[in-house]
């Protein structure tokens, strides 16, 4: 900077300092926004999606004991899961946990449905256990979302 101050006329020095100060302020302001942007905010739409999908997915698993499968009802639940996941993905990296949770739930649903399609109707015990597990998965996701209120 000393070389600059000796070579440049005073008016240009002032303009250079102003430009450097503006740049520093812009950088500081930019950095200050990063943590703010990465905080995931509570989303009532997400809470509603999860709360409504919990019984819907559980009911879909109850249908795994039936033969034939109600493919229309299953496709509808699958579509709602897809829509809910698409909504989470719009919220970016800060919402990574909820997005990941829904990805895991959707992958489980797809895997189990494929398994059921390739085999006989599930036993009553298997259906009861699976419903318990999926309901617990939604409970975990709901707890994650509600914790964002704090």
């Amino acid at each position, binding site marked *: 900077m000393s070389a600059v101050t000796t070579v440049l006329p005073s008016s240009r020095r002032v303009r250079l300092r102003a430009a450097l100060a503006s740049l520093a302020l812009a950088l500081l302001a930019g950095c200050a926004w990063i943590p703010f942007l990465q905080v995931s905010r509570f989303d009532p739409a997400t809470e509603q999606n999860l709360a409504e999908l919990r019984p819907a997915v559980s009911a879909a698993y109850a249908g795994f004991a039936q033969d034939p499968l109600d493919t229309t009802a299953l496709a509808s639940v699958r579509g709602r899961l897809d829509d809910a996941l698409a909504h989470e993905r719009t919220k970016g990296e800060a919402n990574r*946990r909820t997005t*990941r*949770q829904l990805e*895991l739930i959707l*992958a*489980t649903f797809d*895997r*189990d449905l494929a*398994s059921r399609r390739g*085999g006989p109707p*599930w*036993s009553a*015990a*298997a259906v009861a*256990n*699976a419903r*318990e*597990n*999926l309901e*617990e*998965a939604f409970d*975990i*996701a709901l*707890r*994650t979302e509600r914790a964002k209120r704090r």
Partner: protein
Amino acid sequence: MAGGWKEWLDERITAGKKIARDEIVDLVASAKQDSNEFLRRQGRKLERYLGQLAAGEITVDEFKTLVRQLRTLIELEAEEMGTRAAVRAQQLAEDITRLILGQLLRRL
């Protein structure tokens, strides 16, 4: 049938693989005694599934599906746990993969 699954395991895991049988019994016992309620619950569920499989109430394919669901649940919850519990959850998930989905299901 909750207690009968150990004898059922004995019939399926030969003496040469006794270690695997003991490891599965230890896995269930250790999960059921964990200080974290979530992990204890998964241990109780795993024991229930083994009992139902031994009693013929669920098929091998259904058992596999349920154990995979347990592993997914542990993965979901581990993100929300404190560091120590998360490490135990990770260990439980790995043990389920190795002992139940790997060694046990290969013999059924």
